[in-house]
């Protein structure tokens, strides 16, 4: 009877062991569930197009200005301008709020170049996808042109040499224009990157996870975009509907539904889970994290891993001149640490992100909001809290600045900056650039200039590292200096302890040890007498 029981036990245990190993082995051989769907839904090569634009009759003409090119495009793509004119890329205003409050062209401010002054600042609007800032209509080639071309200079040169009668040069320039007009692509990294890699007035200034290193990244920098790996273009994830590109983060999350292609093959492909699902790991315990921790938190161990990114900007130092001239001082990483026109900067590489609960929305101040200058002002901050359905722990770049504000009205102020506008970068006169800048915004300006410390946040989501580089558990599950040290309100194994319990328990354990030791000593001392007996 007992022998049989014993046998059953051993067999069951062995079976349990065998079963658990086997399931693990079986899982290893099955591919990531969403990958095949993603492959089907995406475009793997350049062979997707059914049109060769160099054969289009409409494009075989002499183009003397940008709008003529757009007209040619619209003669076939008749809905494109209407579609585009509703997008945030064109309007620079949030499509989710009424009016012109939120957005670059509205009253939104940041702690870099602060504001576009309703797109009046010419340097800022050089990134707008029109032919000439916000003038002259849509430039389709900003996003769909394969050739790298300074169109404004090109047409200026064309006109100049035409008037000079330099026929040979005119022909050369026109040939270049024609070649560029027929070189049509889906938006490439260069197209998107020409603005998005250079946000904030220079390469890698604004985003720590979006810079020119992504044009030809190694797999180790970006496992998706790596040219020695998957070689994704931006549009693989940033899918588009009627020219509305998914993935923008404003007051509304980029995705509100956590749905994967496995559940819905027409779901947008913008989130990690779109392709990887909510249970992407072989190890079940790691999958248990995905309801609380965003993929990015562990899989982007640091940002700015190739190019240093700008971390602080002190406007209050701007305006120093050498021999009456503005100057630039370069520092580490060969990046400017001082610019007369902008102030002092610091740059950092391999930056450990800050982690916050985040439901996908970022709340931001506008130039109309009243601030409390006695504390660091959060120009933007992630929205979300623990326990909220959509909120997860997410990594952020936090950019610090010391920026101008109105000491009387307690508002952030919007100086007019560009040289072309005779702004601060030409005059170095805060009063003039601020009174004109605020006038454009139709906002009050008391004339009392102060500087206030501010922070601005960027969700870190690009530059996903290969899985070998993902964070170790101990990065967070650790007693001191863990990455999630600042997040309170929940118990995390390895990080959190009950000090009283720990002290008490160790005290008792040591007492027990001491007691048995004393007891043993007592027995040893007593035993010789016993032997004599």
């Amino acid at each position, binding site marked *: 009877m007992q022998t049989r029981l014993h046998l059953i036990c051993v067999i069951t245990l062995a079976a349990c062991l065998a079963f658990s190993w086997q399931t693990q082995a079986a899982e290893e051989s099955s591919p990531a569930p969403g990958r095949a769907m993603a492959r089907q839904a995406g475009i793997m090569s350049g062979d997707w197009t059914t049109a060769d634009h160099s054969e289009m009759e409409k494009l075989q003409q002499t183009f003397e200005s940008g709008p003529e090119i757009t007209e040619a495009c619209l003669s076939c793509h008749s809905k494109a301008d209407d579609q585009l004119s509703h997008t945030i890329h064109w309007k620079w205003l949030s499509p989710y709020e009424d009016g012109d409050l939120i957005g670059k062209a509205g009253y939104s401010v940041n702690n870099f170049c602060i504001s576009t002054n309703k797109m009046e600042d010419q340097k800022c609007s050089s990134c707008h996808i029109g032919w000439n800032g916000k003038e002259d209509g849509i430039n389709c080639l900003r996003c769909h042109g394969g050739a790298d071309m300074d169109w404004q*200079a090109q047409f200026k*040169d064309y006109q100049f*040499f035409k008037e000079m009668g330099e026929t040979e*040069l005119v022909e050369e320039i026109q040939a270049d224009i024609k070649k560029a007009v027929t070189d049509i692509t889906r938006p490439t990294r260069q197209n998107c*990157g020409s603005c998005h*890699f*250079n946000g904030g007035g220079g390469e890698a200034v604004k985003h720590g996870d979006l810079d*020119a290193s992504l044009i030809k990244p190694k797999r180790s920098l970006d496992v998706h975009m790596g040219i020695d790996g998957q070689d994704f273009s931006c549009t693989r994830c940033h899918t588009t509907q009627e020219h509305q590109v998914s993935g923008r983060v404003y007051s509304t999350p980029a995705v509100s539904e956590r749905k994967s292609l496995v559940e819905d093959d027409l779901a947008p492909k913008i989130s990690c889970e779109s392709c990887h699902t909510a249970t992407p790991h072989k190890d079940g315990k790691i999958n248990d994290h995905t309801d609380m921790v965003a993929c990015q938190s562990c899989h982007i161990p640091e940002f700015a891993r190739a190019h240093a990114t700008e971390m602080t900007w002190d406007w209050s130092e701007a305006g120093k001149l050498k021999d009456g001239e503005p100057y630039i001082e370069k520092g580490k990483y060969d990046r400017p640490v001082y610019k007369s026109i902008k102030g002092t900067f610091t740059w950092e590489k391999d930056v450990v992100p800050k982690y916050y609960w985040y439901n996908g929305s970022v709340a931001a101040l506008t130039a109309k909001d009243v601030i409390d200058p006695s504390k660091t002002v959060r120009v933007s901050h992630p929205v979300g809290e623990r326990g909220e359905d959509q909120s997860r722990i997410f990594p952020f770049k936090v950019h610090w600045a010391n920026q101008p504000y109105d000491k009387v009205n307690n508002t952030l102020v919007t100086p007019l900056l560009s040289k072309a506008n005779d702004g601060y970068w030409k005059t170095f006169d805060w009063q003039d650039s601020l009174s004109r800048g605020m006038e454009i915004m139709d906002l009050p300006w008391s004339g009392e200039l102060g500087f206030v410390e501010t922070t601005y946040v960027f969700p870190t989501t690009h530059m996903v590292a290969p899985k070998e580089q993902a964070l170790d558990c101990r990065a967070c599950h650790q007693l001191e200096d863990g990455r999630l040290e600042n997040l309170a309100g929940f118990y995390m194994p390895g990080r959190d302890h009950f000090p009283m319990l720990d002290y008490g328990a160790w005290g008792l354990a040591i007492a027990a040890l001491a007691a048995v030791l004393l007891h043993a000593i007592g027995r040893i001392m007593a035993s010789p007498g016993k032997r004599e007996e």
Partner: protein
Amino acid sequence: MLKKLTCLFLAAGFVFVLIGTATAFEQGNERKGKYMFRKNCRSCHQEGKSAEPLNPVSKTQAQWERAFERYERLECADEWEGLSETDRTDILTYLYNHAYDSPSPATCE
């Protein structure tokens, strides 16, 4: 005495300018140079591109002249070979006239 000194200075200055113009290159078409520079050089010498960003104020007049005298040593010497003598002169003219230490440095934020 003062007069004599002024004279000497003037003379020295004159000689200096004379030597200066003698060694300086023959000026080309600056406007063409600007175009050729944009087309042939800036395509790579730009932020985010393969080569170090360059514009006229990146170097002094002397530095530009030296670079053009010894372009065979540059990494992109092949591209230079593709340009005609006049093209090169035009480009140098543009860069020289708007160099960092020129009277009218190129304005670029």
